[in-house]
């Protein structure tokens, strides 16, 4: 095994959704009845590392992580976890592996059953995975301590929790079975700024204490800048840029990365936005533009971008970009 440091490796992953049935597809002529929500993604995650995956709505980031943990079927591609390839995703075979991957879902309140108490919710992973619980009371107290919630909340129901508390219950559930990898989908969405720091600090503390690795999916660039050392930017189901967070912010390679960073409003009335704003919106996956998928919105698009899709290529300093004319190279 050459990749010993790699906890997770994803190679050329495709997730395909059928948009209409075979009959309708035939009636509509030869229109492709599928769309690729994830269209060839490769990535790796080292032990103890945090990878940030950033993209706008429709970029496929949630589909990507659902495919990794087996909630969505994959059409093509391979996934390795801890050096072993995940082949059989049927329940009995996948479950022991799945136990090592914790998931924090996007909407903490909606992801908690409204009819269960917090005690029942934090202990649910043990029941689902048939793991020896030991003393349930002790276990529940331990989990509450771990995420910094008072034990008095154990008998509360999700609707009685604040957004931050519900998020902590989500952390407790994700970590209950001591996973090695935690995948967090928008861990700070909907939280006030004074609370989102608490959740991110908690996640960082637990990473160090328990030796976790994280994949954090978000559209929030200011947040990801502080929590992950490496970043992958997604656009229409593909990664367009990947590399160290610091380098990506200091000198983005892909025009889309630059536009995303420029679009973040500056909390200073005397610091106006510099770069031009992107025009238009993310196109529908049904009408993926020919050539580079970003070319209709790209301020630097040239003829080649309209016909030829750029391949991912390695640049210096562990950076990769899928662009015919990367920005730093022009300077």
């Amino acid at each position, binding site marked *: 095994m050459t990749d010993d440091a790699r906890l997770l490796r994803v190679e050329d992953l495709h997730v395909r959704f059928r948009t209409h049935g075979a009959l309708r597809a035939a009636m509509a002529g030869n229109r492709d009845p599928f769309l690729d929500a994830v269209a060839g993604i490769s990535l790796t995650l080292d032990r103890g590392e945090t990878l940030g995956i950033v993209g706008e709505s429709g970029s496929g980031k949630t589909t990507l992580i659902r495919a990794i943990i087996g909630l969505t079927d994959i059409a093509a591609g391979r996934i390795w976890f801890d050096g072993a390839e995940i082949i059989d995703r049927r329940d009995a075979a996948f479950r022991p592996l799945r136990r090592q991957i914790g998931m924090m879902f996007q909407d903490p309140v909606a992801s908690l059953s409204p009819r269960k108490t917090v005690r029942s919710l934090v202990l649910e992973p043990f029941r689902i995975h048939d793991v020896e619980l030991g003393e349930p009371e002790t276990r529940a107290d331990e989990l509450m301590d771990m995420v910094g919630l008072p034990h008095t909340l154990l008998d509360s129901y999700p609707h009685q929790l604040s957004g931050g508390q519900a998020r902590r219950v989500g952390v407790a559930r994700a970590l209950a079975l001591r996973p090695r990898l935690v995948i967090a989908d928008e861990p700070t969405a909907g939280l006030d700024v004074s609370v989102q720091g608490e959740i991110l600090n908690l996640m960082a503390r637990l*990473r160090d204490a328990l030796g976790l690795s994280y994949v954090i999916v978000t559209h929030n660039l200011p947040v990801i800048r502080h929590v992950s050392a490496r970043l992958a930017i997604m656009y229409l189901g593909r990664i367009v840029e990947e590399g160290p967070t610091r380098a990506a912010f200091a000198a983005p390679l892909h025009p889309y990365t630059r536009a995303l960073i*420029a679009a973040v409003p500056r*909390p200073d009335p005397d610091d106006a936005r510099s770069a031009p704003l992107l025009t238009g919106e993310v196109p529908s996956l049904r009408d993926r533009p020919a050539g580079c998928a970003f070319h209709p919105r790209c301020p630097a698009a040239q003829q080649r971008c309209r016909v030829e899709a750029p391949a991912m290529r390695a640049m210096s300093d562990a950076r990769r970009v899928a662009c015919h004319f990367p920005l730093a190279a022009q300077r």
Partner: protein
Amino acid sequence: MNATTPILEIAGLSVSFATPRGPVRALRDVSLVVPRDRVVGIVGESGCGKTTLISSILRLLAPNATVDAGSIRFEGDDVLAMGNTALQHLRGGRAAMVFQDPMSALNPVVSIARQMIDIQFRNGAPKAEKRARAVAMLRRVGIPDPEERIDGYAHRFSGGMRQRIAIAMALLMNPALLIADEPTTALDVTLEAQIVRLIRDIKRDLAGSILFVSHNLGLIAELCDEVVVMYAGEVVERGDVRQIFHAPRHPYTRLLLACDPARIPESGGAGAALPTIKGGLPDLAALPSSCIFAPRCPDAEARCLHGAPAMVDLGAGHAARCVRAGND
């Protein structure tokens, strides 16, 4: 009314909601002024009273709400004393609102054209003229091919486009005040940037003031001339946008600014702890007798625990509700 009358003047407004636990005092002694041709931002976190405040302005409060004290004047007219006709005129013409969620703000079963023509019902012009105005307004907010697309329905438009349509509808009656309640929260950042730029351009072209409500400090800094900071139902600080961002005097404003990850110097993912505000919101049904922020305030001293502080005028329109605001 003359040219110096503010568009909106709220003085000492207190609103409470009747609940089985007793009155929840959602707004207490809130004062703010929206002058003519200005963009005033209201910033605050969940539970600060932003939504109750804008509902009060349009008299859209829930039936269990009562206004305990204070006044709301719209171009000099007493909103709290308005009858139904005057209220309808206020809601449908003099003030317009853009809501947070563009997905639910438009009627899904009525064409955009019909909605945009209907909203001009006070305008006596022929229908063709109203339609032409609607098309022109859609073009103004950046909807491509408005002549054809106006006959479409809301589901044919993306979230960003729907918010543009909502803004176009709000502007059709030339309102004196446009209230925008978190208008970009549901949008991606590249669309958010486009909508903010649109609001700024509109401000330049159209007469009228904007009351912009947001929890996003970056948007407030970019768009607003004046800022009102709210916490747990009170205005804790108000001032010119530069005063608030460069020389905040209330501890809550300072902490809120410090918590914004966009203002924190880059840590390169090293995992440095992010700042937070300790504690949680007070129970508005059982208010403390102290300063409302004292339980969470890192600078609280003995006098902060005895009675709520008054607003301290710091000059040049800057004021903060803190006993230490006048000190350095």
